[in-house]
């Protein structure tokens, strides 16, 4: 599994960090998404998908 994030789409809602802080963080500067793990381990696959689904701006894609 691979996670991609698009900072230009991100609106800083924080839903991804709320869902899995091991995978996502937010920039101190403008609150946009910072990806911590591009390839999540099996234990984080479900939350990665959940975060992508919850993202209001469609800024997270899973492939």
């Amino acid at each position, binding site marked *: 599994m691979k996670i991609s994030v698009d900072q230009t789409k991100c609106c800083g*809602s*924080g839903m991804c*960090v*709320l869902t899995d802080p091991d995978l996502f963080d937010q920039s101190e*500067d403008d*609150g*946009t998404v910072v990806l911590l793990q591009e390839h999540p381990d099996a234990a984080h696959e479900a939350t990665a998908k959940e975060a992508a689904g919850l993202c209001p701006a469609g800024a997270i894609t899973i492939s």
Partner: protein
Amino acid sequence: MTELISEKLPTTRQNPFDPPAEVTRIREQARISRLRFADGHLGWLVTGHHQVREVLGSPKFTTDPAKHHQLDARFQGEAPEEGRKVEPGMFLSQDAPDHTRLRKMLQGQFTVRRMNQLSEWIGTIVDDQLKHLRSFEGRADLVKEFALPVPSLVICALLGVDYDERHRFQEDTAKMLSLESTFKEAMEAIRRIQDFMRELIERKKANPGGDDMISDLLATGEPTDEEASNMALLLLLAGHETTANMLGIGAFTLLQHPDQLKILRDEPEVVDNAVEELMRYLSIIHFGPVRTATEDVEIDGHLIKAGDTVLMHVPVANRDPEKFPGNPEELDLRRPAGGHVAFGHGIHQCLGQQLARIEMRIGFSRLFQEFPDLRLDIDPEEVPLRTDMGIYGVHSLPVAWSA
């Protein structure tokens, strides 16, 4: 296919906690249907959860109120254009790129980490307010003494607004949001709050370096004074009206669902999800938000034409069994409630949602820990509901406890 047309949006609730049953029936027939607006425009009513997300997530709709056909005749026809013109800094009513530029200036201040760092401080505010509540020796209005002061104190401190000056905006906020205000009254109220915010911005510019969000915003040198003052106004309104009403009607809801309240008391770890479920169950807006298509767009098999206005019904979408299987009409604090659209969806999703979550988690859990025998001090039928206000909730909530 014959389309379902509603000539008027049903707005009468059959009980305090549920959206109008007629709108639920519309969703059961068609998650996207047609709705007549005040000027005769045949627009759209979206009641399905997935469909609401699709519209709110699409860049082919504008949030600019000047582009919307109005549901409420007060704002149609005789209402001057002035009232709907979007002023600089009102990013909630702006599209990209203005919205993006302005929201980005604030996003860094509302991150999950920043808000978590405020937990202890918010806890102190909640505890102090509970002490204040206890000073009433057995009975008080929970809205006046707890639900409204907590978020007001929090947002005033965060923005660097003197809480003792709240009379300068609280009454006018109510006038702005009242569905019974005339257009003129609402406009006058907003002008007075704008004067207050302009003074605030001037004061902060004269005394730079303050430890608050508005001082930080001004220090970036990015917004114009007019933008900064309208952005601050938006944060002030959004910060105290919404959470206050969730705390008020949320407490009423829990008192009327003793089995659920017991879960919250016995299993403190359920509180994070309880807040999501209360948000899903209550939504606290009557209906909305509204968007207008800027180009032809297909949503779930329906062709929405450029210029068509779409009214989304968040309270009914949050009860959509396709998204929340089982019995979505019931309050169930253990239900996976994530993904509700009570904070909206798309790029305008609530900027302060992480702050609101923390205020509610601490607010609900400590209220019911500290007052284990809290009860209604009025016939539930008599609780004054905010059916007359843009943001739903209770006007007051008389409660009692063993002093």
